[in-house]
């Protein structure tokens, strides 16, 4: 009896709380409605739409009447001729990005922080941010220009190899360096901002006491600056690891061609080509689903690893 009474009372208290909350914050709830509607339409509806990877989706039949086919598309992809090539290319391209692209902004931030001429530091920041604001189409256009036979990059590479007779974009072994270093060029300055912010938050007393202990510049970077940046570095590393099977396919589809598919074609560009260009909706959705599952696995594993060894993690 008594228990039921308290239960009923807490229930009505809760109702009262919700009513009061809504009364006090109706404006805030009104404002969030369009935002939630946006997430529903553009994020959650596509998640529901992933079910077409188990169908033979036909646009005329729609989501509800297309026939179900089980795991057909998944097994078709896994046993298909491109499976291992796509996995290998995606992983390698991302590992190149991780090896060259990840440390570059960290080093730049440390270097910029050591520059004591304010005007020089600020101009270098303006200059290194500039490539970030160039659109992907223009960046790729510039790559086309620089890699054509009389282009600057072709001439420089030709100095070592002796070949300047064809575009570098037609040679698959140049694809990974071109893709990676153009990315480093575009993002090194912009990505350094976050590390500069982290350095800015380091207590300056730490530098003074390091200096009193007789540390030279290099030692104070090693023992003060880098440890101060570490939480930021680890969080960003977790994200980067979580994206190992992700790639900015927009840049790839602008740069690749059938001559370079053997190294340039990655999972996401394959999904685009098979899905949007060829209309194999169900098959390419299955491919995309498979890669996001693996991706989340990477993210989760890196997070576990980071939490275990550094006590810094996403969740």
């Amino acid at each position, binding site marked *: 009896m008594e228990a039921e009474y308290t239960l009923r009372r807490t229930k009505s208290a809760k109702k009262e709380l919700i009513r009061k*909350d809504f009364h006090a*914050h109706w404006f805030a*709830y009104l404002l969030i409605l369009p935002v939630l509607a946006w997430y529903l339409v553009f994020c959650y509806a*596509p998640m529901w739409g992933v079910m077409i990877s188990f169908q033979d989706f036909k646009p005329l039949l729609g989501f509800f009447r297309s026939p179900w086919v089980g795991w057909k598309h998944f097994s078709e992809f896994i046993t298909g001729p491109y499976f291992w090539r796509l996995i290998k290319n995606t992983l390698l391209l991302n590992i190149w990005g991780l090896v060259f692209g990840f440390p570059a902004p960290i080093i730049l931030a440390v270097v910029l922080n050591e520059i004591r001429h304010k005007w020089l530091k600020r101009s270098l920041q303006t200059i290194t941010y500039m490539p970030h604001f160039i659109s992907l189409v223009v960046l790729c256009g510039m790559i086309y220009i*620089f890699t054509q036979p009389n282009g600057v990059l072709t001439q420089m590479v030709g100095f070592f190899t002796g070949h300047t007779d064809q575009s570098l974009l037609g040679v698959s072994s140049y694809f990974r360096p071109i893709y990676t270093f153009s990315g480093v060029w575009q993002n090194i300055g912009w990505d350094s901002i976050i590390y500069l912010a982290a350095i800015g938050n380091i207590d300056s007393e730490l530098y003074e006491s390091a200096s009193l202990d007789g540390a030279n510049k290099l030692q104070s970077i090693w023992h003060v600056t880098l440890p101060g940046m570490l939480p930021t570095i680890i969080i960003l590393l977790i994200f980067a690891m979580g994206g190992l099977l992700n790639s900015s396919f927009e840049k790839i589809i602008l740069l690749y061609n059938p001559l370079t598919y053997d190294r340039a074609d990655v999972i996401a560009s394959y999904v685009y080509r098979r899905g949007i260009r060829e209309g194999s909706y169900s098959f390419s*959705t299955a491919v*995309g689903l498979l890669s996001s599952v693996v991706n989340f696995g990477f993210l989760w594993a890196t997070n576990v690893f980071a939490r275990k060894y550094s006590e810094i993690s996403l969740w």
Partner: protein
Amino acid sequence: MISSGKGMVAMARKTTGDIVFEIIVYFLAVTVGLLCLYPILHVLFASFSDPSRLMAYHGLMLKPLGFTLNGYRLVFKDDRILIGYRNTALYVGLGTLLNMAVTVMGAYTLSRRDLYWKKPIMIIITITMFFGGGLIPWFLIVKNLGMFNNLAAMLFPTALNTWNMIIMRTAFEGVPHELEEAAQIDGASEFYVLVKIILPLSKAVLAVIFLYYFVGNWNSWFNAMILLPDRGKWPLQLFLQEILVQNDSSYSTVGTGGSVAISSVQGTTAYRELVKYCSIIVSTLPVMCIYPFLQKYFVKGVYVGSLKG
């Protein structure tokens, strides 16, 4: 801030090692700066160059080869650039307005302290940062909702960016609570608090988020490529892709009157090359003119660890 205190100590005893270190640091920084700058300068110099000399030229370019504005004349006569500019102005103008409105609305609600439903709302949002339906289901849903080959396709799918909303929320949370309370005691509505207190105190972040959206909209091309088949609706970036990237012979055969204007000029190939450089400059200039003014706010626009808690 830090450099002043640290600098004084370092100044007191500068060893040979420190001097070597400094030389290396300055050398590295200037090298990176030059590497970032050179490709852009190259394009700029080439855009003013004599097209026939440009065709024959190999290697680095440290000044324009001759001087001509013919490339720019052709670009401003090219229908594709004009139509593209007009469409992009429309999409960027309306799109960025919508972005800011939706982002402010979401950020305001998420910055309230004692909302009963705040946590569930936050969970709904956070999930989408880790999971998504992928390209194809997204494309099919957007297309089925009628956002295909029309203005809606360029506005609604990109109306919101979760990161930007969270950055703005963090800024709104930083507005002193006492100010809001004082206004509310005076009988101010929530709308008044948002418009007259929170927004004016968050100008720096509003400026940065505006820049992010502006640049994103200006540079976006993929959605237009898959959602706008009609050439008359193409944004600038899509025409640029045609000019710069599809290096096939489509140039003089496909399309609207603009390409005819160019192909009728003598030395087509050379001018075609020159036009590439000029259209890069013309399309990139607006963004390049804005960002240096907002540069000092950029640090406020980055926020890691926002996912925690």
